[in-house]
């Protein structure tokens, strides 16, 4: 198995993710760690909530990983995404890519996070002091 794709309701562990992609034939690992920011457009955020259509999200993430393998000579791809309530500073997403050379790792990692944000059925709700909003729902 050269992919490790999971939707998890528990704290993501970056060190374990790096450990999983590391392999003797790889000279570089690129890791993207998304973290919960304390504000959006100048407005303070209390916390975020993530919901996933889990089966489809996994299947869409598998597709993205396969596309990345077709585009770049990457060796191992890991994508972990959180669900549930996340506080400021917690990690909603980790993407780790290992490749023989750094260009493939950088580019594949960037492609995976950018595409994930466009196609994978996962939703983020921002909770403010005075209300809450599903991100991107309305124009």
């Amino acid at each position, binding site marked *: 198995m050269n992919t490790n794709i999971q939707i998890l309701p528990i704290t993501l562990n970056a060190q374990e993710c790096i450990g999983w992609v590391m392999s003797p034939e790889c000279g570089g690992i690129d890791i993207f760690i*998304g973290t919960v920011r304390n504000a959006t457009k100048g407005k303070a955020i209390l916390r975020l909530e*993530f*919901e*996933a*259509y889990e*089966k*489809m*999200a996994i*299947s869409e993430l598998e597709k993205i990983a396969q596309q990345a393998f077709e585009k770049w000579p990457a060796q191992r791809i890991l994508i972990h*995404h959180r669900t549930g309530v996340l506080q400021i500073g917690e990690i*909603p*997403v980790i993407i780790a890519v290992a490749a023989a050379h750094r260009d493939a790792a950088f580019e594949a990692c960037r492609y995976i*996070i950018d595409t*994930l*944000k*466009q*196609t*994978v*059925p*996962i*939703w*983020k*709700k921002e909770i403010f002091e005075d209300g809450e909003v*599903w*991100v*991107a*729902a*309305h*124009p």
Partner: protein
Amino acid sequence: MKINILAFGIAKDIFEASAVKVEMTNDATVSNLKYLLEKQYPRLKKLATYMVAVNNEYALDGDTVHERDEIAIIPPVSGG
């Protein structure tokens, strides 16, 4: 036929349920389904966009839906 529709994110708020059932003719398409749902839940039309997934794949408006399909409303995604 009666079809079951799963809802996520804001669609769940709009339906006030995580799944709803609707009655449709046997040769119904995704487009027919959207029309019916938008009539029943006008707030769907206020969304930036939304997709329908059939059996865990994004479906096109002309695709037909069947009684045993797993159908879901996919409002604009915002993961990551």
